[in-house]
């Protein structure tokens, strides 16, 4: 028997790989897990949110209208808001909203071109978007689109997703032990920042088209709404309305393809009067 200590090749017992390479591979893997988990949670929370009774949603949003300086509306604006409410009520009937689900429209004094739906069936429409409406058909389209969001429970779904994402990221990062979630829920009154995804927007567009069909018997003018929004987006102040919505060109094309011919009606008198103040030269 021969006794010897042969030289062991260097690196026989450990990996020669660069440690940063391993870190990168592991981080990517972990990131993929996080992304999948967050998406799954968000989808699940969105589905669960649809189970929240509309009355509960309304209670959460109770403080919403009070945050607006309602008394600041002029007589003209109040008349226009009432007219818009009447249109929304008719749209609600046409869309066969369930009992108890009654959207409330608020006119917001502001030149930005924007309209959005939020919790509790509250719709916000700016003077800016009214001023840009070429005809009643486009106005019905935008209102029907927002009412459709309420019908589909999109605001509460968006809230559910947002809370789930925040809670998941908060739990994973270990920062802010749930305080973030409480903040998000506490800010429910300011949920003008709720974002809807493209599927929700597409569904609302389709519902708006069906509403137009029932209102007028034809859908002419629907695409004009999106031409207005596109023009507004081209200006120096892009409305946030656009940011999460399907590409406007695509929407115009889709709406245009779905349009059936028919006369375009002038804006209702109360709204036309308000617009005339904004555009005195016309």
């Amino acid at each position, binding site marked *: 028997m021969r006794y010897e200590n042969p030289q062991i090749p*260097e690196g026989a017992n*450990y*990996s020669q*790989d660069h*440690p940063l390479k*391993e*870190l990168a591979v*592991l*981080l990517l*893997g972990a990131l993929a897990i996080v992304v999948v988990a967050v998406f799954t949670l968000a989808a699940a929370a969105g589905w669960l949110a649809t189970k929240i009774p509309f009355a509960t949603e309304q209670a959460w949003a109770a403080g919403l209208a009070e945050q607006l300086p309602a008394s600041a509306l002029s007589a003209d604006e109040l008349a226009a808001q009432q007219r818009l409410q009447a249109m929304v009520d008719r749209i609600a009937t046409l869309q066969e909203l369930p009992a108890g689900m009654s959207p409330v429209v608020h006119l917001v004094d502001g030149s930005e071109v924007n309209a959005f739906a939020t919790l509790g069936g509250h719709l916000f429409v700016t003077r800016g978007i009214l001023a840009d409406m070429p005809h009643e058909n486009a106005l019905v389209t935008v209102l029907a689109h927002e009412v459709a969001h309420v019908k589909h429970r999109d605001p509460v779904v968006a809230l559910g997703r947002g809370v789930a994402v925040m809670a998941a990221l908060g739990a994973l990062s270990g920062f802010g032990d749930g305080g973030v979630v409480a903040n998000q829920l506490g800010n429910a009154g300011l949920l003008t920042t709720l974002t809807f995804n493209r599927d929700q927007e597409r569904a609302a567009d389709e519902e708006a088209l069906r509403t137009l069909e029932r209102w007028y018997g034809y859908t002419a003018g629907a695409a004009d709404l999106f031409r207005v929004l596109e023009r507004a987006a081209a200006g120096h102040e892009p409305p946030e309305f656009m940011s999460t919505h399907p590409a406007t060109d695509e929407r115009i094309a889709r709406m245009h393809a779905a349009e059936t011919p028919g006369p375009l009606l002038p804006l209702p008198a109360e709204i036309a009067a308000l617009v005339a103040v904004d555009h005195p030269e016309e």
Partner: protein
Amino acid sequence: MNVDLVVFLALLSAGYVFGRYNERKHFRSIQEREQAMRELLVFSERLPPPQPGAVECTLVVGSCVVAFDYFKSFVAGLRNLFGGRVTSYETLMDRARREALLRMKQEAAELGATMIVNVKIETSSISGEAANATGSVEVMAYGTAIVPRQRG
């Protein structure tokens, strides 16, 4: 930017830079000393091969403690998610084992030994079970040094 995140990134970079620098330096030193002490043989055999002449047997011990750096711990923590070789600790353990053997050999060499038999290696974590403690491992090598008895 979050303060926690800044601290975390600073620890991670510091761990990486210093950890890598020390590791390279240590490996170079280990390789040099291993070459220098190649003549002193070590075996795990319990008994020495038959020796001509009288010998003395002495216990020799070498031990080494190595600490994980933040970078290694973080990578190992990520590795726990997926399983597989914890390569960031493999180099650490290799260094600790070889350093412990070298220190044992150093002690034996000072005694004038020609070989060490019955060599055992023991490893223990000395960080305890405390959460978030920066861990260290101790590797201890011990064996029986065979020292030829001096004549006269």
